């Protein structure tokens, strides 16, 4: 390791890095703007100047830019040298000539990198007296504000948006001091990663528009470490609360998962928590006709009942009653703790997964693939390091967006290798990107649509799910001829399969991405063969990213009780049971946990199921279609109000903490069930031991302890969270910053007496500004702060090296899944090829980052963008049916009639359409049984289709001094 001297002190440092990275990793303060640990150096801002000396005798030295200077053994540098200080100060003064100094009204204020760096440079007096450049701002959609006058032209936004995230509709426009970062025209930013601009921008040009609606300063937000629940990647987040409302979500660095970036669904989907549909009280339904109104008989009204009364009613379900059966319906969006509590409440044999048969089978398939000795679960950095990727049947941009962002980086490995050969450091970002003359590490996508990664693929196969599976089987056979062969594959597909197999076999870090996105078990089976073949070839497990749709899909499948009826614990089974019970004169009581059955199975079946049940109890966050049909409703806490555990796609169990207490009677679902157990034990003399155990659950840790005893696969999870008695020098970790304002007076409008702070005896965190702050271990640290570093970039101070791992260890526990039963050998059931029928088009599911997630759809911004969801139609079918892009089309699927806008796709084979799933306003279409539909034109698109890049508008650059 090279030894260098900085300001007279000797350090041993990492070879090959740049000086800025090195200084920051050593904990030294050196201001910077354009450099970003994830994006490398370009040398634009000139802020990180240091003095470099030729040798010990050299007393003058020369200025170099830290970010552009590789450290060399024996190098002598000075950050404190007067000329370096003067220059950095001069750069700030130059930047400030056009900055409006509007910090008091700027939403970045208090967490502004520009403020921090300005302070750090020591520049205090500005001599510039001229007028300032002004710009017109743009409407960038529901998520992001634009205030270009604050811009210091560091180019980070476009480097992130275009080069890192692959966006095309944000660019640097104009030149000289009037450079403008914006779109050609007003309009919502197209990238699903645009929200990171808020954190990438070092000042207040791009700020969170959802936050503006209920703004609070960073230091006034109460925060806790949380985990995103809008897909199964498990990105770490820091939600912020004030006055009992959730204000925003920002990224929480995790070196193995999200790093510095989130997707927009995760960042902006939080507003469902503040929604008017939020359940806050215990409600008991009554028949409307009892109230003597004219409403129809089935319509229920929901008078509030006391929580005690509610718990009493819930406890009644525990009394033995041979005339009824109590069924628990779990949920892939509820925590391990809540699902487990329900399972314990109703008994293992009465616990059902709360998903359709197909979904249950896919969950099982994914779990089994996870547990296979042939696979290894990759972290996000592992995905970025892949040098050959095969995506089979998954549109990750929409089902696991953060994975898609990582895949976009993986294709650059070829160029990075080229740079290394030419001895160009990989952090020299502009230089490395310059080397890129089109070569990429292979990324082959086989999916039902081209997907948003199509611009970086080496090969693309768009086909029906069964054909994708066949292609996967063919790849496996090519890798290992003992795997079953596929007959009747077309020549081009055969060639592509050989190519993909070659790529995977010759790669150092091959990666398979698959999942349940096509709702096809065949694809999982084919993936199974590929990993088996490749693992045999490599004599090592294969990195396999298995994508499931919901935050706790994998966790829920681990909770599936090992009963003889396993694999059948799905909603169809419940529906059947309800009917059988009815016929047998038995009543069925359903306890439904955080689940809207109408979005899970055919709405008719859901209807029958609910109608056939004697009692329906729902514990949920929002008023859903199912909640509206319940007899008893308990308000469940949202993730940000909960302590609990999710198991991500990676197989990482992650624990999160409540940011604030839910209002009114909101509490975690398991607490309602435990309350009922307690009530039951208190009012009965005989009770089963598992109910007695539940009655004693007081803390989340108690549930976790019971959980790991009951579920072998979850061993160790009760050790993930630091114990609730964990203290730092006798202190809990404070949720409020040391600068939190107004604590003694913020509720004075309600009562002049100072409100007592809520007490949290369930976790090592306190609802207070008192306690430990920046000393917290990563699992408990929600917001990083260091003296002089108020922005998110203070995370530098908590990493082993900038952009590396958090000191104290990354949080979460990677579970080791054990495969049930022995290796079952090759999967041999190869599906038949898809045969297109011009009259009846196959319906294939299409997932939308905005629109296919139940909870985030209640965030107004997400809902606005979900309206963009379109039916993907093959150009071949469209020509035949005289349908043009953006036309309104109708689909008749069984007895459901749908209308939506069409989007034509030339890559899509004839005979299938991709139907967006979960979109508000569209009925749920159950795709468990293959669905076919006739397609017809309803209405011609009113105007000429708006192209993605409209013709040049007037330049947005206006104003200025001249």
């Amino acid at each position, binding site marked *: 390791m090279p030894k260098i001297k900085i300001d007279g002190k000797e350090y041993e440092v990492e070879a090959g890095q740049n000086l800025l990275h090195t200084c920051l990793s050593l904990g030294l303060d050196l201001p910077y703007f354009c450099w970003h640990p994830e994006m490398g150096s370009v040398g634009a801002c000139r802020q990180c100047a240091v003095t470099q000396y030729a040798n010990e005798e050299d007393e003058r030295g020369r200025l170099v830019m830290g970010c552009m200077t590789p450290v060399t053994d024996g190098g002598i540098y000075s950050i404190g040298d007067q000329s370096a200080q003067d220059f950095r100060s001069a*750069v700030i003064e*130059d930047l400030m000539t056009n900055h409006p100094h509007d910090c008091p009204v700027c939403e970045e204020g208090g967490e502004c990198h520009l403020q921090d760096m300005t302070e750090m440079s020591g520049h205090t007096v500005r001599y510039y007296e001229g007028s300032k450049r002004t710009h017109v701002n743009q409407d960038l959609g529901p998520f992001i504000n634009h205030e270009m006058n604050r811009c210091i032209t560091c180019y980070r936004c476009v480097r992130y948006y275009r080069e890192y995230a692959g966006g095309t509709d944000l660019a640097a426009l104009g030149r000289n001091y009037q450079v403008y970062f914006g779109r050609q025209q007003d309009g919502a930013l197209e990238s699903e990663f645009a929200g990171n601009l808020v954190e990438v921008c070092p000042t207040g040009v791009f700020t969170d528009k959802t936050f503006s609606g209920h703004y609070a300063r960073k230091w006034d937000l109460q925060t806790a470490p949380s985990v995103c629940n809008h897909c199964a990647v498990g990105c770490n987040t820091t939600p912020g609360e004030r006055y009992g409302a959730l204000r925003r979500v920002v990224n929480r660095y995790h070196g193995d998962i999200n790093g510095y970036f989130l997707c927009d669904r995760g960042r902006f989907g939080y507003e469902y928590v503040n929604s008017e549909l939020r359940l806050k009280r215990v409600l008991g339904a009554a028949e409307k006709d009892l109230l003597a109104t004219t409403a129809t008989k089935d319509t229920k009204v929901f008078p509030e009942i006391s929580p005690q009364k509610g718990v009493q009613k819930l406890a009644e379900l525990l009394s033995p009653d041979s005339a009824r059966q109590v069924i628990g319906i779990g949920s892939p969006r509820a925590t391990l703790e809540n699902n487990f509590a329900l399972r314990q409440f109703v008994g293992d044999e009465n616990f059902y997964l709360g998903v359709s048969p197909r979904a249950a089978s896919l969950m099982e398939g994914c779990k089994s693939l996870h547990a296979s000795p042939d696979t290894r679960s990759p972290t996000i950095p592992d995905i970025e390091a892949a040098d050959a990727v095969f995506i089979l049947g998954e549109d990750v941009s929409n089902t696991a967006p953060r994975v898609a962002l990582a895949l976009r980086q993986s294709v650059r490995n070829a160029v990075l290798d080229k740079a290394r050969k030419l001895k160009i450091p990989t952090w020299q970002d502009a230089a490395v990107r310059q*080397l890129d003359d089109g070569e990429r590490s292979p990324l082959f996508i086989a999916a039902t649509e081209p997907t948003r990664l199509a611009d970086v693929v080496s090969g693309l196969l768009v086909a029906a799910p069964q054909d994708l599976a066949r292609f996967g089987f063919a790849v496996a056979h090519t890798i290992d001829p003992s795997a079953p062969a596929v007959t009747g594959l077309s020549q081009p597909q055969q060639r592509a399969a050989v190519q993909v197999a070659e790529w995977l076999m010759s790669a150092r870090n091959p990666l398979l991405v698959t999942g349940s996105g096509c709702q096809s078990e065949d694809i999982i089976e084919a993936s199974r063969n590929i990993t088996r073949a490749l693992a045999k070839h490599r004599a090592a497990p294969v990195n396999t990213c298995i994508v499931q749709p919901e935050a706790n899909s994998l966790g829920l499948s681990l909770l599936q009780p090992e009963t003889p009826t396993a694999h059948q614990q799905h909603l169809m089974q419940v529906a059947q049971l309800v009917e059988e019970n009815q016929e047998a004169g038995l009543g069925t009581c359903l306890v439904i946990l955080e689940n809207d059955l109408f979005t899970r199975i055919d709405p008719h079946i859901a209807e029958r199921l609910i109608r056939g049940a004697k009692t329906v109890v729902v514990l949920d966050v929002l008023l859903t279609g199912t909640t509206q049909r319940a007899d008893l409703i308990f308000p469940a806490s949202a993730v940000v109000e909960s302590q609990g555990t999710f198991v991500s796609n990676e197989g990482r169990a992650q624990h999160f903490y409540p940011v604030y207490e839910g209002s009114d009677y909101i509490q975690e679902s398991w607490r309602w069930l435990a309350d009922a157990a307690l009530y039951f034990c208190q009012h009965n003399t005989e009770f089963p031991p598992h109910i007695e155990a539940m009655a004693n659950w007081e803390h989340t840790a108690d549930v976790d302890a019971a959980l790991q005893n009951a579920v072998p696969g979850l061993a160790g999870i009760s050790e993930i969270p630091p114990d609730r008695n964990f203290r730092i020098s006798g202190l809990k970790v404070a949720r409020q910053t040391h600068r939190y304002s107004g604590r003694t007076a913020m509720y004075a409008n309600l009562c002049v007496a100072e409100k007592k702070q809520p007490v949290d005896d369930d976790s090592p965190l306190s609802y207070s500004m008192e306690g430990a702050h920046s000393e917290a271990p990563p699992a408990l640290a929600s917001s990083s702060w260091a003296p002089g570093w108020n922005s998110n970039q203070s995370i530098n101070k908590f990493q082993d090296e900038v952009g590396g791992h958090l000191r104290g260890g990354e949080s979460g526990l990677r579970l080791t899944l054990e495969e049930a039963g022995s290796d079952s050998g090759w999967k041999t059931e190869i599906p038949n090829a898809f045969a297109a029928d011009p009259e009846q088009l196959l319906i294939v599911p299409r997932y939308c980052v905005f629109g296919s997630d139940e909870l985030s759809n209640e965030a107004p911004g997400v809902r606005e963008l979900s309206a963009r969801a379109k039916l993907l139609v093959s150009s071949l079918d469209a020509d035949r049916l005289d349908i043009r892009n953006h036309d309104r089309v109708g689909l008749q699927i069984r007895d459901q009639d749908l209308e939506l806008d069409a989007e034509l796709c030339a890559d899509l084979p004839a005979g299938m359409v991709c139907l967006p799933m979960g979109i508000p306003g569209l009925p749920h279409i159950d795709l468990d049984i293959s669905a076919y539909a006739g397609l017809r034109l309803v209405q011609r698109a009113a105007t000429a289709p708006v192209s993605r890049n409209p013709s040049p508008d007037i330049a947005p650059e206006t104003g200025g001094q001249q």
Partner: protein
Amino acid sequence: MKASTPLTKNIGPENIAATIEQYQANGGYAGLKKALSTMQPNDVVETVQAANLRGRGGAGFNTGLKWSFVPRGEGSPATKYLVCNADEMEPGTFKDRLLMERDPHQLIEGMIISAYGIEAVRAYIFIRGEYHLAADRLEHAIEEAYEHGYLGHNICGTKFSLDLYVHRSAGNYICGEETALLNALEGKRANPRAKPPFPQVSGLWGKPTVVNNVETLCNISHIIANGPEWYRGLGKGADAGTKLFGVSGRVKNPGTWELPMGTSIREIIELHAGGMQDGYKLKAFLPGGGSTDFLGPEHLDLPMDYDAIGKAGSRMGTGTMIILDDKTCPIGMVRNLMRFFAKESCGFCTPCRDGLPWVEKILTDIEQGKGSVRELDQLAQQVWNMRPGNTFCALAPGAAEPLQSALKMFRKEFLDHIERGCCPYEAAETRFVGA
């Protein structure tokens, strides 16, 4: 036939371009035929290196040496490019325009030989957008060259093939910076690139590329035809060859002339440019275009060669002088230059993007008599901020050159403006109106 003014031998008084017939009749394309029939590519590189031809765009780097950095021969990348930098936007410079408008084939022949030397498969002339006449004439000449088999497949019956294109710039001074030019040619923003990699290794579309100035390339055919010794002998002093020198400002006969390297400044101004106009005295001059330091009358006897001008504290640059007379406000002149550079900054790095507009503003204030002494310190600070290495490319350091020398040479004039609260030259009817 060995002319003492090879670059302009085909250029007459009339504003017409030499046709290919006229060009050939006067020895044109002989160099190309010689190179293709008797020389290996490496011989071309070595010959040019031996001729000590230095880049005529301003930096003065040995052309043959620059070429030698291109990976050539077996195992080297098959695709390489030659780019002619015809984005002549240096204030006060109009030499390349003459060469392209009047004798386009000289440039074309030079490019074909150069491309042969560096084994390029395609060549581009990146030409300033305003030079539409030159572009039209070049395009016509290129057609002629194709018709005569000097371009296209199997040139002159050899295995060597080359395509040549004219690319009209959308405008921007920064496109004269070779890496910004490459970005512009690729259709990207004209921001300079990080070096390394240098264009010779990874240039246009990531392929090895050489970028040379028009005048540089125009020398090549003559060097090949007549040999490096002949070429070195053309210069009067340390540097080889002839050069187009120009003079603008209040002289009797502003223009551009081909003269031996090392010709004295006095000869250029007094003999060729006819001396100062009546009633005006020479106060100072920028020897090599707008981005060079001022020199004064005491430097008139210096020879125009790279090192001599460098020693005197300026640069030879493009060799085209801008004269400041005694009745023109020097602050106005510098302000005008700074306005140009501030507008032409690409906007990438801070000292240039935000420093130059501030400089312009201070100079405007001072010129209008609203300046203060403190502002002179700010100007000095800005000059320091823009030192080479402090900025991403050479634009700002170049822009700072006339300013830093003006602050030294014209301190009295600056103070005059500040103390009087007005421009002392106002009355004398001659505010500087533009280079």
